C-alpha cells in the first residue's frame, strides 16, 4: 500500500514569520525585536565605552577633567564676574550640581541626534532594530554621567567635612535619583531621536542642535537658581520640563532649590509624550531613510 500523496501546499494557508511591506502603519513598532537584540545593545554600550579611550594616555580621566574645567569657568564668570546668586552655596558645588544632570541631558541629545546620518553605512548594510543605536548611546553616556556624579559626591563630602552648612536630603536622594536620571535619559533620547528622524531628509536641523542645546542651558536654571528669576518670567521657565528636574536634583543634593511634585509630574508627562512621539517617528523613518539620507 502506498502512502497517499500529501495535499499540495497552499501558500495562503501557511504561517509566515515576517512580512515586509511598504507601510505598516504608525504604531507597528516591533518593540519585541528590541528585546531579541538586547545582546547587541550591550555590545554597543561596551564598544562606546571601550573604543573612545583606546590610544589615549589619560583614558577615563578625561571624564573628570572636562566637568572640572567647565565648573571652574562657570565659577569665575557667573559667580566671580557676573555675581549671580548661588543660593548661598559654595559656587563650585552649586555649578557642579547643575551641570552634572544638564551635561548628561545635553550629551544624550547630541549623541542621538545624528543617529541616522553617522550610522548610514551600517544601517545600509544590515537590519537590526535601529532604536538600539540611540538607546545604547544614552546608556553609554550614563557612564560618563556616573563619573561626574562621583565627582559631585566627592566634592559634597569634602564641603560637609569642612563644616559648610549643607543639608542634603539623603532619603530623597536614594528614592528619587533613579527617577531623575530616567527623566533626563528619556527626555534626551526623545528629543534626540526626533531630531535624528527629521534630519534624514532635511539636514538643516543639525545646525540647530548644537547651539540650540547651548541656548537651552540658559533657559534652564543651571547656572542660576530658579528663586532668582523674576516672577514674570517664571511661568515660561517652568514650562521647560528640564527646570523642575534640575531644581529637584539640586534641592535633593544641596538642600536648596525649588522642589515641586507638580513640577516633576509635569516633566514626567512631557517626557512620556516626547519619548512616545520620538519612538513612533523614529520607527516610521527607519524603514525608508536609506533612500533619502
Amino acid at each position, binding site marked *: 500500500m502506498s502512502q497517499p500523496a*500529501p495535499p499540495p*501546499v497552499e*501558500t495562503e494557508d*501557511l*504561517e*509566515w*514569520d*515576517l*512580512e*515586509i*511591506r*511598504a*507601510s505598516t502603519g504608525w504604531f507597528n513598532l516591533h518593540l519585541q525585536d528590541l528585546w*531579541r*537584540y538586547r*545582546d*547587541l545593545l*550591550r*555590545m*554597543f554600550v561596551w*564598544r562606546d565605552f*571601550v*573604543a573612545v579611550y*583606546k*590610544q589615549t594616555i589619560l583614558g577615563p580621566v578625561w571624564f573628570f577633567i572636562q566637568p572640572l574645567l567647565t565648573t571652574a569657568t562657570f565659577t569665575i564668570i557667573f559667580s566671580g564676574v557676573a555675581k549671580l546668586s548661588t543660593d548661598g552655596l559654595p559656587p563650585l558645588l552649586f555649578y557642579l550640581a547643575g551641570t552634572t544632570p544638564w551635561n548628561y541631558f545635553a550629551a544624550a541629545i547630541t549623541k542621538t541626534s545624528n543617529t541616522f546620518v553617522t550610522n548610514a553605512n*551600517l*544601517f*545600509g*548594510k*544590515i*537590519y*537590526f532594530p535601529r532604536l538600539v543605536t540611540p538607546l545604547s548611546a544614552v546608556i553609554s553616556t550614563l557612564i560618563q554621567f556616573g563619573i561626574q556624579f562621583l565627582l559631585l559626591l566627592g566634592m559634597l563630602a569634602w564641603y560637609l567635612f569642612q563644616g559648610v552648612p549643607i543639608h542634603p536630603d539623603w532619603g530623597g536622594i536614594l528614592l528619587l535619583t533613579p527617577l531623575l536620571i530616567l527623566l533626563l535619559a528619556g527626555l534626551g533620547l526623545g528629543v534626540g531621536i526626533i531630531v535624528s528622524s527629521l534630519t534624514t*531628509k*532635511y539636514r538643516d536641523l543639525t545646525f540647530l542642535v548644537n547651539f540650540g542645546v547651548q541656548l537651552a542651558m540658559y533657559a534652564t536654571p543651571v547656572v542660576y537658581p530658579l528663586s532668582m528669576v523674576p516672577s514674570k518670567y517664571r511661568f515660561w521657565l517652568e514650562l521647560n520640563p528640564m527646570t523642575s528636574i534640575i531644581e529637584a536634583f539640586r534641592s535633593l543634593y544641596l538642600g536648596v532649590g525649588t522642589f515641586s511634585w507638580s513640577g516633576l509630574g509635569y516633566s514626567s508627562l512631557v517626557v512620556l509624550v516626547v519619548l512616545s512621539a520620538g519612538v513612533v517617528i523614529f520607527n516610521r523613518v527607519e*524603514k*525608508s531613510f*536609506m*533612500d*533619502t539620507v
Partner: protein
Amino acid sequence: MSRPVIHLEDISKLYRLGQVSTGTLAHDLNRWWHRVRGREDPYARIALDNDRTRKTSPGSAPSYAWALKNINFKVNQGDVVGIIGRNGAGKSTLLKILSRVTSPTSGRIRVKGRIASLLEVGTGFHQDLTGRENIYLNGAILGMGRREITRKLDAIVDFSGCAAYLDTPVKRYSSGMSVRLAFAVASHLDAEILVIDEVLAVGDGEFQKKCLGKMNDVASQGRTLLFVSHNMGLVSSLCKRAILLEEGGLRLDTGTSEAVLSYYTHGKGTPFHVRFDELNRRIGSNGGILLEGAVEDMSGKPCAEVDIRKPFQIRMRYRVEREASRAPFPNVHVTDNTGAYVFVSFPPGNEVGKTPGEYEAVCQIPGNLLNDGTYFIGLGLTFMDKGMQVAFLEKDALCVNLHDPLEETLDHERNGFSGTMPGTVRPSLDWQVRQQL
C-alpha cells in the same frame, strides 16, 4: 515536499533621481496633499522605467524611476537561487528590501524562518577593537546572542585562520585578514535563510575555496540561499535556479544555465537554438545564407547546458546559392565570455556544397576539452574558389554553458579540489605518475 519560505508579491521600488534639495519639501507637501485627498502619488505615476541610458531632458521636472517593478517569485525551502543581472538591473535594491534595510514602495514579501543577509563582510567592524572583540560585536550585529558566539568562538577563529592575531586591533590586520575574520563570523550564522551579495569576490584562492565549501554546506543542510553575483561561473556551479533581472523587471526565472546565457545575450531569443531564417534580417550574401544553428547534446536535442565531461555538437543549416568549383566550407568560431578566441574549426577537405541547395553541417566537440563557464559560438561559411569570400560570419550566434557538476567530479576528476580551475580549456590528458625506486 518543501514549502515556500520566501514569497514576493508585486514588489516595486521607486527612487527619486537627482539631488535631494529644496525641491524635496515641495514634492513632499504635494504628495501629502494628494494622500490626504485619497489620490495616487503624483510622482509614481510619471515615473520612468529603469533605463539609465535615457537621459531626461534638462529642465524637465525632477523625475522618479522604478528600480524594481512588479517582482513576483517564490523560493522554496532548501533552494539555492542565483540572482543575476547587469549593473543597475535592481539586484542590490532587491537585496536591500529582502534584508529590510529599506522598504518597498508597494507589494509585500512574506518570509518563514530567520533571515540573515550579508550585503558586505565586516559590517560594523570597529578598527580600534581587537579581533576577538570584533567577533562579538559583529556577531551581535548579525543577530547572534552572546552565548551563541562564545559557543562558536573556536570554530569561528579556526575558520578564519587568524588565531595568532586575535588580540590585536583590527586596524593592524591586512585587508584580506579582516575579510576572513568577518566571513568567518557571518558563515556561522544559524539563520534558515541566507541572502548573500558578492562577498566572495575577496580573499585569496584558498579562502575562496573555503567559502564556497561553506556555501555548499549551507545548501546541503536544507537551508535556503539567495546569492547575488556577477560571477556566472560561480552562480552556475552553486545554483540550480537563477533569476535574471533586467531594468528593474524580472526577466527570467528558470534553470541557471538558461538564465546565464540570457544574461550574456541580453535576453534575445533562445541562444542555444536560433532559426535565423525566421529573423527579419537575412544573414549572408555572396552566395550563402545561414538558416539555423543549434547547440545539441549527442542525441540531437538542443540544450543550454552541457556537462563538461560529455561531448556535444554544433549543428548549422545553410543554403548555398551559387555554383562553386571548390565547395564552400562551414566554420565555427568558439570564444569565451571575455571575447577571447578559443579555437576556429572547419571540416578538412570538404567536398560537399558545390551546387546550390540546403546543407547541414554538424561539428562535434569532444568532452573534457573546454573548461566550465559560458562559451559563444560564431557560425560562418567561406568560399575559396575565387580568392577568399566570406558568405557570412555570424559572431556569437549561439552560446552554451559548460557545467562542472561538482558533486560528481569532486572526488575523482578534481581529486577533492573544489576551487576554480583556471584556463579557457580543461583537456583531459594522459598522465603517468610512478614512484621512483
